């Protein structure tokens, strides 16, 4: 091989020489491998090539970059590169008041913001030994389950979108718009709600919310059945998803999977029943579980969970007690020095916060645990030997949200 200059000027901007741009243009990084895994991955065998998917890509659920080692079109291995949305939330929370941290947490899993706030307020309530009024707990569950429905419907829409079906996403967004307008009438915001407070919620339910909710609930079941029916019987969708990305239950537990992805592999672990919090012990709902562990099972499980969430919402509306929505707390909160861990069952899995307090009004350490972070790690176990299109299916069915993964 003749010695050519390894660096070439960019075709778009000749001022830029490509070799020195770290990790941006060529999949192979321009430095020697630093770890065993990197060396093993970036050593190409016979007939293998590396391609780069992302970070700007319509189907990576945000900004994620995946370096794939291919042999033809079959994936041999892949290396996800994260950090394109790392905003330094944990550090920012260390410099903020307890109340301000709630606002920092919303944009993490932006489609299910309330589940990002929930473990934080639970952890602080443990540190402050605060009793949350029952009405506030019921409102939290009600709005949380609405958010879960919206998130799962979006996940289903994006699942279809990534596979090329452009219609179901529009139906998902109709439902999402309605739910989000409902939540906007009590929280004031369509998306990053900032609604939960330490000791309760920010405001009581109001007339507009109840009327919108009533309207929506009256036609929710048939509407969702109709939307989901677009995909359940669709041969292309089913054939692309069945048998793709099968996850073994023991391996799923070892890879620290939680949430619908774990339950679709046959492990009936749901934090709402395994480690109950809030008023879930008083509510009657099932934990749907499926045994196949493939992408179709993950999709169908989300459909089942939506139905269970509708049941929970119904019960919340009937059992809602009267009372205050916020506990009486001083304005300046100084929790006791100590540590608290709280985990909730979010739409993607176990969303947890580990808060360390040193007695001041700022958290000393604010650790955010996101479930999709661990789901992405398992790409290397699920897709080798399959085609790129199957990777797309697996990615869509795992439903990652890069905001939460990158924090």
């Amino acid at each position, binding site marked *: 091989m003749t010695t050519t200059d390894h660096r070439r*000027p960019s075709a*778009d901007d000749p001022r830029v020489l490509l070799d*020195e741009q770290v990790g*941006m243009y060529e999949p192979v990084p321009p430095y020697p491998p630093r770890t065993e895994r990197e060396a093993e991955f970036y050593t190409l065998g016979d007939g293998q090539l590396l391609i780069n998917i992302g970070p700007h890509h319509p189907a990576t659920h945000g900004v994620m970059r995946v370096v794939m080692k291919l042999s033809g079109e079959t994936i041999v291995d892949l290396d996800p590169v994260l950090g394109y*949305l790392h905003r330094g939330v944990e550090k920012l929370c260390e410099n903020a008041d307890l109340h301000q941290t709630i606002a920092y947490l919303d944009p993490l899993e932006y489609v299910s913001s309330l589940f990002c706030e929930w473990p934080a307020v639970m952890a602080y309530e443990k540190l402050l030994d605060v009793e949350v009024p029952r009405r506030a707990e019921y409102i939290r569950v009600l709005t949380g389950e609405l958010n879960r429905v919206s998130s799962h419907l979006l996940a289903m829409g994006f699942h279809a979108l990534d596979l090329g079906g452009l219609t179901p996403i*529009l139906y998902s967004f109709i439902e999402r718009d309605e739910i989000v307008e409902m939540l906007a009438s009590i929280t004031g915001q369509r998306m990053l709600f900032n609604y939960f407070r330490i000791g309760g919620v920010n405001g009581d339910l109001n007339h507009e919310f109840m009327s919108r909710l009533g309207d929506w609930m009256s036609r929710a079941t048939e509407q969702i059945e109709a939307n989901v029916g677009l995909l359940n019987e669709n041969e292309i969708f089913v054939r692309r998803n069945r048998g793709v990305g099968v996850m073994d239950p023991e391996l799923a537990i070892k890879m620290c999977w939680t949430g619908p992805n774990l339950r679709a592999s046959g492990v009936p672990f749901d934090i709402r029943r395994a480690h109950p919090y809030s008023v879930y012990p008083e509510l009657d709902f099932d934990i749907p579980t499926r045994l196949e562990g493939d992408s179709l099972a993950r999709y169908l499980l989300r459909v089942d969970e939506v139905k269970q969430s509708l049941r929970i919402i119904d019960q919340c509306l009937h059992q809602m007690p009267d009372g205050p929505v916020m506990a009486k707390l001083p304005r300046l909160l100084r929790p006791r020095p100590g540590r608290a861990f709280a985990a909730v069952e979010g739409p993607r899995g176990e969303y947890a916060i580990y808060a360390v307090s040193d007695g001041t009004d700022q958290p000393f350490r604010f650790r955010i645990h996101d479930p999709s972070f661990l789901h992405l790690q398992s790409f290397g176990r699920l897709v080798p030997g399959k085609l790129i299109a199957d990777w797309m299916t697996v990615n869509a069915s795992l439903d990652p949200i890069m905001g939460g993964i990158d924090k």
Partner: protein
Amino acid sequence: MTADERGAVGDGADDLVVPSAGQPAGPSSALVVPGATAVAAPIVVRNELWSAADATAYDGGRASDITHLAELEASGIASRDDARWSGVLEIIPTKADYVLDLLRANSLWPLLSGLACCAFEMMSSATSKNDIDRFGMFPFRASPRQADVLIVAGTLTTKMAGPLVRIWEQMPEPKWCVAMGDCTCSGGRYKRSYSTVEGIDRVMPVDVYVPGCPPRPEGLIYGMMKLQQLVKDRRGHWPERAVGPTVPESV
């Protein structure tokens, strides 16, 4: 139409206004490159991480002998404003210019550049309830080569700044940029963070700022209509736009 315009553009004599050098910013302007303001000098991020074991590898570190593109850039031909379909002395727009601006305004094709939460409100503005298809903006192109508008929706981090500027550069002229959301306008709630870029106007020229966290879909539609107005008024045409925040130093 095209032959005439191409003749006029290729003339060179019409270019009375020479666009100022130094913009649009290179992809590494979000990283530390002090003093690299000469157009002809390549922006090279020096390799300080390692040195090759073999001294003759990588061509011994010599400069590249592929210079045609650098010469092209230095000659200034590439920075000319090729999209103006110039009218008389570039001052009086002709009817063709007016019609072309109308065409551009009514079919602005956005690029899918949803980085974070604002992407969801952008998608919400594209779907059934708040439909920007009625403004001609439905096809959200995935490829920058086919897009007109870059709607940056979501926080820009220093790691993503490079790819985003690269995307901006890959978009052919005429192109516009909309900064959607507080994080792209000014850094937003992540302004103090160690890894975010405080507003995309630090790395690329912005035409319309849509504040909000996230802005409602109606807000984004308002911003897009402002952009349509901009296009029709031929204001803020991209070569003259400045890179850098527009907040004065003393603030």
